[in-house]
């Protein structure tokens, strides 16, 4: 892996304002400027309302900045339309959420297959890859279980398998350990670290988890929409 040779995310003077010009105007991000190297493990920390989830949503192409520019793998997301953004989300980004966000009517296997099918993989190919990813996550015997039949840790591993489905460049985690017990949380972080180190995925997490320092190689500290600290863990 040519880790660290290029920037996978670049944010230049990013502002995010909700309801601009109105009474209830909220400035969420204030002149954010940073670059993330490919293959890095970055954590974004900060108190509630500091704008860290909004920043993650922008990196995840779910939101566009109000001003400034954000480049994902060299592409200026401000210039892309809805479908192009969707394609980038599918191809280059894998999401992991605090609430896992698995689709409850689908089995573990089908949840992963869905991500592959959306990106145009054939049914057989999707099933094959989904199965091997879930096996890699230690869920080989849980393929046909629905989320309600799985523990929190297992659900999060299904979600990670889904995030990896289309072999993205970046994995974004929004409090991925927020809903699971300490021990399982540790395992999830170890898994992410493994994926980062051995497979070269760029990992960006928003978290409150105090153990994160152990895993990250860089931590950005946000307060009131501004970066107050940016450095090695």
């Amino acid at each position, binding site marked *: 892996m040519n880790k660290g040779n290029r920037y996978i995310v670049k944010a230049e003077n990013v502002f995010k304002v909700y309801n601009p010009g109105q009474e209830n105007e909220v400035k969420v991000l204030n002149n954010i400027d940073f670059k993330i190297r490919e293959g890095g493990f970055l954590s974004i920390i900060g108190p509630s309302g500091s704008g860290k989830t909004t920043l993650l949503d922008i990196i995840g192409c779910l939101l566009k900045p109000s001003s400034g520019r954000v480049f994902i793998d060299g592409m200026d997301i401000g210039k892309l339309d809805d479908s192009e953004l*969707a394609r980038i*989300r599918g191809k280059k980004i894998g*999401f992991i959420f605090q609430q896992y966000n698995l689709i409850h009517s*689908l089995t573990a296997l089908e949840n992963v297959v*869905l991500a592959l*099918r*959306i990106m145009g993989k054939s049914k057989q190919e999707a099933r094959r890859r989904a199965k091997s990813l879930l096996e890699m996550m230690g869920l080989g015997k849980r393929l046909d279980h629905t989320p309600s039949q799985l523990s929190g840790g297992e659900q999060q591993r299904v979600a990670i398998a*889904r995030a990896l489905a*289309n072999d993205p460049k970046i994995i974004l985690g929004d409090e991925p350990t927020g809903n699971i017990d300490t021990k399982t949380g540790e395992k999830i972080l170890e898994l992410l670290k493994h994926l980062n180190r051995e497979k070269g995925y760029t990992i960006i997490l928003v978290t409150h988890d105090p153990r994160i320092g152990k895993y990250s190689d860089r931590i950005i500290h946000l307060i009131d929409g501004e970066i107050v600290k940016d450095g090695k863990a």
Partner: protein
Amino acid sequence: MLDIAFRNIKRQKTRTILTVLGIMIGIAAVVSLGSISQGMNIMMEKSFELVAGRIMVFQGEGAAGIAGMMTAMSTSEITEEQIETMISVSGVKDVVPMSMYMDTSVNMMQLGWVAIGIDPVRLNYFKGENILMYDGRELEEGDSDVAIIGKDVADKYNLEVGDSFTVKEADFDIVGVIERSDIQDIDMGVIVPIEDLKVLLDKDTYQMAFVIPEDVKDTEIIAEHIEDADEDLYTMTGKEIARQASEILDQISIVTIGLGAIAAIVGGLGVMNTMIMAVLERRREIGVMKAIGATNGMVLQQILIESALISLIGGMIGIALGMLGAFGITMYAGGMLKAVVTPVLAVGALAFALCLGLVGGIYPAWKAAKLDPVEALRYE
């Protein structure tokens, strides 16, 4: 996508079943009501074979349309002199006077027969060349107190050659049964010599006459000439009847299919309601789909497939039910009307169901497609 759609509609079983029921009832109404007008259409078309290339003549006021014709028939009294007048019009090959009688004290649907008096020699003008006898013989010159009956009458009253049939206190010996023709007047007809019927009705006059032109091309002109020759007569040609009948049938079609369509549209609103609920419930899921790469178009498609699926299932059951309804109507009408579900009607009903699903689904699908993924993902 289809398998996911199937699974999604199974998630709220009761709601899906109720929605399917809504569409089903609507489509069943469209099909069964439509089958009535289709059946009438076919029946009318068959009946026109009787009047094609001929002129029907009545005496009295030329009341408008087919309804007028029905009234005219009961009051019309054509005299022998008027028959002579018709024969004298140039281009007329023959004139076939006729009278009819039916027992008006009984519901026609239950009665199932109508007596038709005709000159035995000219029977073919009424019956048509290609209609055959099922059993026995045709009427012949000099026949008296005998009848030939249509297949429906024979079946309904379990009659055969040799039996007798009572028309207004007079008994007629059945000498022949006519093969089923699908022409109502013949299948339900008890055809007797006109002179017998005149005596029975105590009348010297005829109710109507068929004028047969030498050349079919001259039908319209001859009809005009007959009306010119005797102002008390009025004529209807097959062409005119066909035109009026198709107008009436069109109106009946609009009313019957329209009624069904209203029911079906209510079903379509049910689909819309169901899909709006489904989209609300699945906001988060839609957010997830978008986060993992689904475009707005894919989300739109997913919801549309689900609503189309619901309405297609409803539509298919509805068509089956409508066919059953058509069968029931035919049974009830006892030969008066054969409700027919034509392929066009069935396919049209299914297409209509699909349209309802798509139209009912488009708004919720559009709402789903336009959901902001950030909001949807964090929806509790």
